[in-house]
């Protein structure tokens, strides 16, 4: 069953430079994955009796997807260690130094973009990955390694030819966090869940796409219909919303996955302030076996704001004009 610890995580308030102290908050720590759906019954319900997942949430985290080497044999922190870990992660200064490429970026703290300036869902896990038990993504199959190497080789030397060569995020088409599975992103890592008869809708602030998930028992789209975010269908297993997604394209590779990616997500309201989000990804064309992770999402005040990414995407033009300037310089023998 889900074992939850509630601690006063005032340690999380020891934030990075420039941030004020947060009031002590009681945050839920998801210590062990749920194995059954009925054990975490919550009194927070919608009018039709379903567990209420609605509201604004953040999945901002200080927990790495994969377990750090130095913690190889340690799946869980003690609450004190977790607080110390969070403190260290949030205090880590930007990797920058005058005259270095890392410095050619704005000061994240000034623009409210540091994680230390967000609410962070506490977690005593040492990795988001819960299975395999070593906390690491399973090795890629030789087929997947070759596929990804071929893709990279094709683009090599053409990275700045035109907008089509730039990544999906830079083109404001999709961000890697959107999934599914939905992953934390560096900033604005917020989402809203709305439940209605026959549907659950999820808006992620980055970068504004809405997932409309039918929960009416309808089947997946035909296999030849492929979508950027796949085709998601939801159903309830006790108090857990289970969302099954297939029909991906090969354009949105999640950690090198293929169009055969299959994602199963589980959403469970474990207390008033927490939705425990778990997912399992499977793609025999990419990994030897499936793997799973979990991310506690904590409640935030709304609203989330529109992120009309392409509206002001001067960066695309400026990157390409920068590349043209570099080419001219090289042609000039410099």
């Amino acid at each position, binding site marked *: 069953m889900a074992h939850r610890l509630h601690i006063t995580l005032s340690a999380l308030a020891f934030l990075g430079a420039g941030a004020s102290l947060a009031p002590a908050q009681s945050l839920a720590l998801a210590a062990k994955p749920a194995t059954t759906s009925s054990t975490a019954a919550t009194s927070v319900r919608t009018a039709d009796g379903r567990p209420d997942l609605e509201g604004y949430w953040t999945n901002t985290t200080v927990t790495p997807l994969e377990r750090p080497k130095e913690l190889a044999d340690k799946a869980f922190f003690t609450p004190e260690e977790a607080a110390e870990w969070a403190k260290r992660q949030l205090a880590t200064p930007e990797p920058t130094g005058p005259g270095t490429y890392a410095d050619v970026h704005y000061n994240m703290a000034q623009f*409210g973009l540091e994680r230390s300036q967000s609410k962070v869902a506490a977690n005593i896990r040492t990795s988001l990955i819960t299975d395999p038990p070593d906390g690491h993504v399973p090795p890629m199959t030789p087929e997947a390694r070759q596929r990804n190497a071929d893709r990279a080789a094709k683009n090599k030397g053409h990275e700045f030819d035109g907008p089509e060569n730039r990544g999906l995020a830079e083109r404001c088409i999709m961000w890697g966090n959107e999934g599914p599975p939905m992953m934390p992103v560096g900033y604005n890592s917020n989402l809203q869940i709305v439940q209605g008869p026959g549907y659950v809708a999820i808006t992620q602030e980055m970068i504004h796409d809405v997932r409309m998930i039918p929960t009416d028992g309808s089947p997946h789209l035909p296999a030849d219909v492929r979508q950027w975010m796949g085709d998601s269908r939801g159903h309830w297993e006790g108090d857990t919303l289970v969302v099954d997604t297939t029909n991906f394209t090969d354009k949105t590779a999640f950690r090198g996955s293929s169009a055969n990616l299959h994602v199963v997500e589980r959403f469970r309201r474990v207390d008033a302030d927490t939705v425990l989000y778990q997912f399992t990804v499977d793609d025999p064309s990419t990994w030897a076996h499936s793997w799973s992770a979990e991310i506690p999402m904590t409640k935030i005040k709304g609203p989330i704001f529109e*992120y009309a990414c392409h509206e002001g995407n001067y960066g695309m033009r400026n990157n390409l004009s920068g590349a043209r300037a570099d080419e001219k310089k090289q042609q000039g023998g410099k």
Partner: protein
Amino acid sequence: MKKFVGACLIAAALPAWAHHSFASEFDVSKPVKLQGTVTQMEWINPHSWIHIDVKNADGTVTSWMIEGGSPNSLLRRGFTKHSLEPGTQIVVEGYQAKDGANRANGRDLTFPDGKKLFIGTDASEQTPSAKPDK
């Protein structure tokens, strides 16, 4: 010349916090320090852009565009598009655009007295009511 090479994967990842490659846009060998008067703040995603007029030694004026962070985060931390009104004097330290245009990233933004713009937030919640540090 231009060659389309198919899907550009999100997995070909930028760092989680970067919308695009700043090193491709700005020139690390061209650091700039500008003091100017705000003429406009573009409140747009993925990046805010602040326009300033910089007075040159010969009395002429050069307009610069300064790239900053997402307005969503600023708004959440109490900074609105009215927080930096035209006429405000600011100092910008950053790097100039590679193509030589009068654009720079806003590495550090301060008021002439040295106070930082924007910095500092209520980390507990995102209530757009706090005053900016100015």
